């Protein structure tokens, strides 16, 4: 069923009786060409591009809960391509380009809003760093604009420009950045993949791998064994748990990141704003809630909830940046498990076990990567060659010293 204005009018006039569930709930088959482990954003987009771009339809997505129950439904929905290093920036820029055409491509309203993102700076040194980053973005064909204090004032007059400790001196703006309705992304990709015959199997947990003579031939699940020619792990925060079933140790630690939503307010934030002097980022949802977050809690965790010191830290960041936020009540907060990698950059690669592939290490920034991650992973699965923009996202880059460390903090995942 294609969605269109005509369809909405027709359904509206006939009592909305024609809408159908947008994906099936099939029983797993005995064998597939490709099994994808994890029905998060990346698993579903991989299935979508495999079936829609690479013509591989005999695919199953196995999800231990329901699709959208992981980080794809827990993030703060910010998309941008303001990275600096050559291993990252072309990848994220491709992702942003894919976002720009996504709703037409998969015929689903993902509420993509390119409202722009401003990274504020508060000192001369920070201005220089952002100028450099902006130039690196321009070199890769992304958009970037260095704003002075006056220009930031025009856009966001409500910020605390004269904060005694961290006055706002300007910002790096990416106008094409913005926000997206996160779970609609999961649903849209699921629908698009299901339309092409991909089986999305929920409540199906992978509990082991079938590995014969160094070749992975299938998985064990709570619904019984399923075979496949290629098995693609895409389990984000649970990556280490899944890969340990194949005896693989990853350059990843799992950490918890929290997010917060205030009560609904009238429109006040025109775009996404990040504070440069602490870790705080905020946007306003279409329902009016201020959606914000900050640092990860900083210790290993699989708990999907965090602790109070970070809540305090995030709220202090908000108060320093825009004191009016203190008048809004906090409505909800939650946590998600991040697959923090050793250099803060992700992996899309084969493993040393033939037939077993790995996608993970997305840290707190994998939502924006959802389209490109799916496309590049599908490319790797279909051709056994890395996609042009994902060549450097290899699992063994640490052995060869080809680290992609945007922040330059070294192998300390809780600092990335």
């Amino acid at each position, binding site marked *: 069923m294609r969605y269109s204005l005509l369809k909405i009018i027709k359904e509206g006039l006939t009592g909305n009786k024609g809408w159908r569930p947008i994906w099936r709930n099939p029983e797993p088959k005995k064998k597939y060409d490709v099994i994808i482990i994890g029905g998060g954003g990346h698993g579903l987009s991989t299935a979508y591009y495999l079936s829609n771009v690479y013509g591989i339809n005999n695919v199953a997505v196995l999800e231990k809960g329901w699709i959208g129950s992981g980080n794809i439904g827990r993030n703060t929905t910010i998309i941008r391509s303001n990275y600096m290093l050559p291993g990252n920036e072309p990848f994220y820029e491709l992702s942003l380009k894919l976002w720009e055409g996504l709703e037409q491509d998969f015929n689903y309203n993902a509420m993509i809003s390119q409202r722009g993102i401003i990274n504020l700076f508060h000192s001369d040194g920070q201005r220089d760093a952002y100028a450099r980053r902006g130039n690196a973005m321009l070199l890769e064909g992304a958009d970037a604009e260095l704003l002075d204090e006056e220009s930031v004032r025009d856009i966001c007059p409500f910020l605390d420009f004269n904060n005694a400790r961290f006055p706002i001196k300007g910002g790096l703006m990416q106008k094409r950045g913005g926000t997206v309705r996160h779970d609609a992304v999961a649903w849209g990709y699921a629908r698009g993949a299901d339309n092409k015959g991909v089986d999305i199997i929920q409540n199906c947990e992978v509990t082991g791998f079938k590995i014969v003579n160094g070749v992975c031939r299938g998985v064990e699940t709570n619904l019984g064994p399923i075979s496949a020619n290629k098995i693609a792990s895409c389990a984000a925060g*649970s990556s*280490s*748990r899944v890969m*340990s079933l194949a005896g693989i*140790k*990853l*350059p*990843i*630690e*799992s950490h918890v990141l929290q997010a917060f939503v205030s009560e609904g307010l009238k429109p006040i934030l025109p775009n996404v704003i990040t504070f440069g002097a602490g870790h705080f980022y905020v946007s306003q949802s279409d329902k009016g809630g201020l959606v914000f977050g900050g640092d990860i809690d*900083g*210790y*290993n*965790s*699989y*708990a999907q909830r965090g*602790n109070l*010191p970070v809540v305090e830290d995030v709220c202090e960041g908000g108060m320093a940046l825009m004191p009016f936020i203190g008048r809004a009540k906090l409505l909800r907060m939650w946590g998600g498990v991040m697959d923090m990698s*050793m250099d803060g950059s992700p992996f899309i690669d084969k493993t040393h076990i033939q037939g077993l592939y790995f996608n993970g290490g997305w840290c707190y920034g994998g939502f924006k990567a959802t389209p490109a991650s799916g496309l590049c992973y599908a490319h790797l699965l279909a051709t056994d060659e890395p996609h042009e923009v994902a060549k450097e996202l290899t699992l063994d880059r*640490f*052995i060869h010293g080809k680290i992609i460390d945007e922040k330059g903090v070294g*192998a*300390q*995942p*809780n600092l990335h």
Partner: protein
Amino acid sequence: MVINHPLLGPRDASEFVYLGDASLMDRPNWLDKDAGQKFYKYQYLRDNPHLEHKELWFHEQGDRSWLIVTRNISTHEILTVELAKKFFDKGV
């Protein structure tokens, strides 16, 4: 989280700095023949278990001792707390 410091009693976790897996105490010998591989594994690969995890916490805003905390990673429950020094004294 409250960490039961063996010398100072219950202390708020925010007084501490977190380093990571306690295996970081077992630094390889740089003279070993395959020291390169060993350092790669030591520095970059993690078990990252989802239940019990032994980890290093530094009491930066306290007595500046290193602790080995064993935590349930899925509930944040702290199981045991020991001074890391104890293990060094044994020559580990």
